[in-house]
């Protein structure tokens, strides 16, 4: 009987100690929360820089902008939670921010490359077209000038007064 009681007592003590330790194992401290929020802020900054470069190249970044806006809201919530000491929510929002912009740097870089290539092709086409156009203009312009000059001189000749009789 005594042994059974002792066993139950030790079991209850172990369970009580475990119940104290489990929350400690999963609780987020302020350093972890601050680190998560700072990382999310850094990720968002990098994503913005990549999107800004794509925009400078002339890409359509409206879809990427929408993701940035969503990530910005999450980061605002994360910062707010961090300030109020709600570390678990701070980490949660920080992760949501990072998830919202996952892969955005690569997408923006790809978009920038695609746009730059398209612009280079467009410039090449425009240059070739303009060169051909200028050559044609020179050729037809020269020929046109010759024809115009001929027509002008023939008209001028037609306007010469005729000498009929010399008065004595």
């Amino acid at each position, binding site marked *: 009987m005594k042994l059974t009681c002792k066993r139950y007592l030790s079991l209850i003590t172990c369970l009580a100690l475990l119940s104290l330790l489990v929350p400690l194992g999963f609780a987020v401290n302020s350093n972890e929360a601050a680190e998560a929020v700072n990382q999310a802020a850094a990720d968002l*900054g990098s994503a*913005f820089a990549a999107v*800004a470069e794509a*925009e400078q190249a002339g890409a359509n970044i409206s879809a990427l902008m929408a993701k940035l806006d969503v990530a910005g809201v999450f980061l605002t919530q994360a910062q707010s939670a961090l300030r109020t000491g709600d570390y678990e929510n701070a980490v949660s929002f920080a992760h949501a921010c990072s998830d919202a912009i996952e892969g955005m740097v690569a997408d923006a870089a790809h978009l920038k490359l695609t746009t730059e290539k398209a612009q280079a092709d*467009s410039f090449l086409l425009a240059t070739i*077209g*303009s060169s051909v156009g*200028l050559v044609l203009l020179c050729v037809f312009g020269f020929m046109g000038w010759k024809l*115009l000059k001929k027509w002008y001189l023939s008209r001028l000749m037609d306007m010469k007064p005729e000498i009929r009789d010399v008065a004595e």
Partner: protein
Amino acid sequence: MNCADVKLAYMLSCIVLSLIILSPTLAHVVSFPEGEKFSELWILGPNRMAEGYPFNVSAGVPHRIYLGVGNHLGKLAYYKVYVKLRNQSEPLPNSTAGVPSPLEPIHEFHVFLADNATWEREISFSFEQVSFNGNVCRIGGLMFDGHYAAVDKVAVWDAERNGFFIQLFFELWLYNADISDFEFHNRHVNLWFNMSTVP
């Protein structure tokens, strides 16, 4: 019309035609001068006009304003708006030196704006845990845009203006991709409040 005039007219026509033919190439190469680059930061009253700003406030009474940011920098911009609270003795940002206020922000907004775009947000706020003790008013907290911030500000009675004055101000910061950090964009707007006991 003599031959020289005809020749001149013909050459001018050819020059105009050549410019038209060259225009697609010139469009890629020539960049037109851009206008002035700047950002905007503003506060509007509860009716979205530059009037009717809250001034006499008391504990627990909500007030509404509109905070706005405009981008005219000619490119995509990433702004951060810091919300700060000060009493009469604490420093504002120094616009001359371009230095922000050293006070800690109580809230912030992250805003991404394309060129010529604007962002405007309705904000509701109220002062909480306000107590008066002689010529000192202590403000424990500020409920701002649905978030509670413990501010613990003390406003001393201003005998000249007859009131306990506290100021809410907003600083505009701009992300600089070169340094991967925000810089104070030398713009701030503020609102003075007179804390009264009577709602």
